[in-house]
């Protein structure tokens, strides 16, 4: 198993900068620090943009009504919903996608884990991922699927990292599956289990 990592790894998702599109309607899904990306988007958009837009915002765990939600609320979105976390926002996103019409531009922003969940929900609703706008804001902590036991470990920040399900020590690869919404983790010391490399905090 290669440990070589390349700057432009072809399966690793790349994120852009949200840009207001010419569209009939807009669906924006944001998590945590993605709030600022939404502000930046609105600042670039025509005046009637927010009135044609729905915003689903996951403010982060254990926050009741933080200043970010307050600021977003004031932007005048046609519909505005808050959720505690990205995972909690997903059922609401599925509901919005069920009612969505073609010609609605979809904008996704937040940390790497949140983007994984949002893109996965959109593709499950029949949208091609190439038509989605994404912008990364916040943590680079990864969702990781253990290739051995198939369990998904959330918020992985170290290299290597332990699988939260089977306990194997995993190399967190750049190889990424959009269908699963996770990076691949592969046992790092299979050839010699006594060789335990130190963990480094690299996905922050």
């Amino acid at each position: 198993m290669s440990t070589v990592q390349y700057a432009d790894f072809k399966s690793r998702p790349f994120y852009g900068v949200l840009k207001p599109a010419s569209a009939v309607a807009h669906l924006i899904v944001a998590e945590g620090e993605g709030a600022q990306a939404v502000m930046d988007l609105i600042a670039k958009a025509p005046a009637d943009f927010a009135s044609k837009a729905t915003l689903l915002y996951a403010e982060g765990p254990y926050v009741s009504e933080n200043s970010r939600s307050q600021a977003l609320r004031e932007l005048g979105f046609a519909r505005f919903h808050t959720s505690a976390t990205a995972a909690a926002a997903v059922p609401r996103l599925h509901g919005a996608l069920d009612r969505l019409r073609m010609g609605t531009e979809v904008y996704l922003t937040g940390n790497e884990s949140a983007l994984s969940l949002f893109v996965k929900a959109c593709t499950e609703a029949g949208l091609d991922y190439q038509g989605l706008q994404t912008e990364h804001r916040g943590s680079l902590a990864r969702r990781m699927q253990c290739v051995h036991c198939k369990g998904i470990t959330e918020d992985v920040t170290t290299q290597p990292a332990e699988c939260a399900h089977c306990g194997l020590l995993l190399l967190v690869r750049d190889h990424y599956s959009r269908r699963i919404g996770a990076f691949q983790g592969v046992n790092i010391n299979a050839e010699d289990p006594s060789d335990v490399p130190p963990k480094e905090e690299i996905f922050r």
Partner: protein
Amino acid sequence: MGSTASLPTFKDGTYRDDFSFRNSPESVLRAPFPFDKDEYMYAVNMELHKDGRPGTAYEQPIDVDEHYLAEMRDRALVLDEDPLRCQSLPHMEMAGWDTLELLMECKANSYPDSFSLERDGDQWHWINRPMGIDQRFTFGDATTLPYGPLEYITRQAQGDFVVLDERANNLWMDAGMVTTQADWSLDFDIGMNFFEWHAPVPLAHEKGIFERAIKYLLAVQQSNPARRLNWTMTVNPRLDTSPENYHQWGPENTHITPENVADKLFLRIELQSFWRLPRSNAILFPIRCYFLSMRDLSTVPKWAKRMHRVLNTLPPELSSYKGLDNFRGTAVDWLAQFDDGSPTTPGPFPD
């Protein structure tokens, strides 16, 4: 092609536990040796899959050899443990039927003594004598088969099978039966496009290999299949070198010694072919694995000599990606005794 063939006596080897897999001398000579030169680098080594050379693995479009039954037993064991090795995204049902038709037609045409297919409209009758299967079913109706069409027929065909959907000038790995893979996971890669599932391969992206390869593959049309060869090396004749159970077979990579290298280290050859499927417009991508031990290679002077040179000059990135670093030196040392430094003849075939 067009000529028919008879199957050899099947061998009883295993690909796990006691690893009793062995090639007969005939089986060594017919293998698709992957090196046509004394050194190796990636290339778009694609050619039309036709004009099968008699006495080689290329003779019939879908090759069946002496390891057929042993390989099918191994596949069944893998699937018992991990059913996720065969998957098909919902839109790939039609491509599964296309695959079933192609494999049944090829086998029945190539080996009429062993396989037969009778079609009366959508009422089909398939006989696989080596596996003792006699199946009547309705083409297009999955309820008339014990498995889905892709799984049904690939439980009866050697090698892995990946089915690629064509969309937006790209190929998408949307279905497959993968139990004899060189360390990649269908469960993880399913749904990816051509560039994404090749992401872990070093050097080839930079060399533009995949851009050229996909242009060639998108042009593959019905009745004009294409093929290429790939290779790696495997410790023990283990067909199922999957990432899923890497933690189980990985330790074996450190077990090669000068004493056991001849019989324990294998050249793993992949004969890959590409077939345009008619009703789904998908491309079927069979990846057929052939094993040659270092001792098998030493029975063909040209191959032993060339294998020595290829391993000796392999770029380090490729050696690392293919997972050869633990034993490459040991193999080079053992093969050196067969290399007198004299030139080799062009092409891959034995002298």
